[in-house]
């Protein structure tokens, strides 16, 4: 019997820190953007005057959270008793380190007997011995088995 397993993103308890990385969009939260202008001028007799500076204005960059889960949903066919692996990547598109809550939902006439999430620690996009222990239902799920 074939079963359809659909993973659609993301609903469980979070506890995972996502480091803002190259994928992160924007200036890091907390950065101070300071601006100061200056001017040179002369007096009526053409003498150069000492340069003057303006006050400094500072804008503080706020945190904007963002996460992109790719793919947002994924499906596969399998026989009864099969183990199916799904590879899911999440990207921190915000401008600060952040934590997210992950969960999953299934659709179709199918209920998985157990779902476990693994962190793809060696980042080779498959579940293998290089990856960490099961995070069970808590994790940064880059790998998921249904």
């Amino acid at each position, binding site marked *: 019997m074939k079963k359809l397993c659909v993973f659609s993103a993301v609903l469980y308890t979070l506890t995972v820190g996502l480091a803002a990385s190259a994928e992160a969009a924007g200036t890091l939260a907390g950065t101070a953007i300071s601006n100061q*202008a200056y001017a040179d001028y002369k007096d009526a007799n053409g003498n150069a005057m000492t340069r003057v500076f*303006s*006050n400094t204005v500072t804008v503080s960059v706020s945190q904007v959270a963002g996460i992109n889960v790719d793919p947002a949903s994924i499906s596969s066919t399998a026989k009864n008793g099969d183990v199916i692996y799904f590879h899911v990547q999440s990207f921190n598109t915000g401008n600060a380190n952040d934590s997210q809550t992950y969960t999953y939902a299934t659709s179709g006439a199918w209920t998985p007997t157990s779902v476990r999430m693994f962190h793809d620690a060696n980042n080779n996009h498959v579940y293998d011995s290089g990856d960490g222990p099961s995070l069970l239902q808590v994790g940064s799920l880059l790998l998921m088995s249904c």
Partner: protein
Amino acid sequence: MTKAFFITGRLIMATYIGVRKSLILLCFLTGIVFFGSADAQAQQETKLDLKTTVEKELKVKKQGKTVLEKVPAENSSPGDQLVYTITYTNAGKGAVVDATIVNPIPRGVTVDPMGIEGTDANVTCSIDSGRSFHAPPVMVKIKKPDGSLESKPAPPESYTHIRWIIKKPLAPGQTGQVNFKATVK
């Protein structure tokens, strides 16, 4: 008798010329002192003040219309449009001549090259850390594969400085504003 008189006459002449020289010299020296003090006075009494403010421009819907509203920008997010305003004031007693305002573009924002304003000011920008200034959009020459050069507008991220040259002397008390828009990266 005649001889003696003659000598006396020469002495008088000599004294007269001596006095005249001293007077000329005195006038000359006084002149220098006079001009010198006027100079120092003009310098002391010439003062330009600069004040910078920053606001955030938000698109707000009012009565069905989208309008831009300026709000304080102490906290901003990537993508926000900031408006920097520099107010210049002649705070002295003498004229301010050839006022040249320079704003190095801070890290973390991208300037909008066509959003730089300044009434009575000649606006130029630098993409080489202030070494050279050109009217926006600053063009760069790119070598194409066939060896020919193509002129293209420099990307806004490459702008490093904005310069405003105020065209006319500022009278005491006179004030004006220049501004630029930038987006938080």
